[in-house]
């Protein structure tokens, strides 16, 4: 990968990937990934379909062992550091009659992986209440999750990920099924809560534009390779042309950024346009 980050090896980095490569079915899904994320920074992960975004998340979650390289979360092996990584999944569409209230869902984020059942308890209740407050979800704390809107569910998933006090939280396409306004709301909320709590955010999305105002750095993935840096450093014609392996233009219109495949590409693509 292109070494755009002067702090590549950082003393107190939250996430460290060194020489990570993954091969699936004889194809290199990721190769030569080196990156180091700082505490509290907001990183957007952008890239076309098949660029390796999901694979990267699986590696950080410890669900997939890379074929080469090392992955450290707060200096520890990922499998020993699971409690330090929060996760917001791509899709969550509960049945309308699921007997689960908003507060029950958030509580699972606190101790759902432990054996046995919880007898409640004052401290647990207070912690859940506090997490619901972070995402302004107290209003519907006792509603069944199956009756909530996509935006309301998204907030609960963020609270569920943050309640265990992780150092880093991964969000897999959280904006995919939301309208433009809800997208802005979710991004602002994640940015604010993570900033307040000093949590590093890794947010995967197709469109970088909703993130431009909150993102500290961007991780651009294409063809299994990555470029990490500020938007101005990475989202440039020359950098992305090398990453994609064919000519790419970066167009800025009304404060929005569009990445457009050039005439020599097999087809004209527009990765970051939204309809």
């Amino acid at each position, binding site marked *: 990968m292109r070494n755009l980050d002067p702090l590549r090896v950082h003393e107190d980095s939250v996430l460290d990937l060194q020489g990570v490569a993954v091969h699936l079915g004889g194809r290199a899904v990721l190769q030569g990934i080196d990156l180091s994320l700082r505490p509290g920074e907001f990183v957007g992960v952008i890239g076309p379909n098949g660029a390796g975004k999901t694979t990267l998340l699986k590696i950080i979650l410890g669900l997939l062992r890379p074929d080469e390289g090392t992955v450290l979360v707060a200096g520890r092996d990922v499998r020993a550091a699971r409690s330090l990584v929060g996760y917001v999944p791509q899709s969550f569409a509960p049945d309308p009659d699921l007997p689960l209230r908003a507060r029950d*869902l958030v509580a*699972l984020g606190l101790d759902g992986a432990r054996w046995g059942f919880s007898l409640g308890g004052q401290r647990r209740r207070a912690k859940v209440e506090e997490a619901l407050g972070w995402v302004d979800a107290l209003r519907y704390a006792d509603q*069944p999750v199956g009756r909530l809107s996509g935006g309301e569910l998204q907030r609960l998933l963020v609270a569920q990920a943050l309640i265990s006090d992780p150092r880093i939280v991964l969000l897999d396409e959280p904006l995919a099924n939301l309208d433009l306004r809800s997208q802005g709301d979710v991004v602002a909320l994640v940015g604010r809560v993570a900033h307040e709590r000093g949590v590093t955010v890794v947010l995967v999305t197709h469109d970088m534009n909703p993130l431009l105002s909150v993102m500290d750095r961007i991780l651009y993935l294409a063809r299994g390779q990555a470029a990490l840096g500020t938007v101005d450093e990475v989202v440039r014609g020359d950098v992305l042309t090398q990453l994609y392996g064919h000519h790419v233009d970066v167009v800025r219109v009304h404060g929005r950024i569009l990445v457009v495949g050039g005439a020599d590409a097999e087809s004209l693509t527009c990765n970051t346009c939204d309809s």
Partner: protein
Amino acid sequence: MGLWQALFPAGLFTASFMQNAWLAGTAVAVLSSLVGFFVVLRGATFAAHAVPRASFAGAAGAVLAGGDTVLGLAIFSALSALGMASLGSRRDQGQTTALVLMAALGLGSLFLTLGGAYAPEVYALLFGQIVGIGRADVFAILGLLLLALIATALLYRPLLWSSVAPDVAEAKGVPRRRMEILFLLLVALAATAAVPIVGALLSFSLMVGPAAAAAYFGRSPGQALAVAVLIGILSIWFSLVFAYDTGLPVGFFVAAVTAVFYGLGRLWAYLWKIERGGGQVPA
């Protein structure tokens, strides 16, 4: 007074076979609705339908071999559960469930034919019976219940999480596949206990009916689980009384009573909606 005596005739509580039926029936109801709670949460009703039916082949095989039918049930329900879990694809769990079920039913029909079909005990296993439950059966069923209670108490939170939000649970260290296997083994446990009493064809209603109805009454997982167990117990008690009064099969009453509870649940959800001014009827 006449109605009272017609409903609760002499011997309903005192006949020794009825005492066995009360004990075993109550234990089976608790076990079935406990497991059924997770069946409904996971939307795994087809598996809950298939395991008891597949286990029937084990009973038929036991009859043929002259062995213990409950042991046959246990072996076949566990094998079919493991088969469904290990062959299952994420895209269509129904396919493998159906294939395992068909393989088991095929074996069952083979065993029945070889063993000289229409043995009364086989008929009882299909539709259930209460008269033939001995003390040994009661203890066996209580043992199964105890095992299931310990297992669900231990697995409660991870299984709940893996059932409602499998992606997050897996990311946080609750392995999806292992939970699926453990869940299906719980279904096998419930099937082994329920089939001799309610029957292979109808034990599904005791597993899914109370839990499905409870989802409308309870708002939190704990509430829904408690209501499911309560409805399960009431269902089997009503059914035992009606079956004793009329001499009709207990499985029929279990199916009918749980269906009534489910209908009440839907009605409750509907009225709740109207009460709160929402125009939408629950789907």
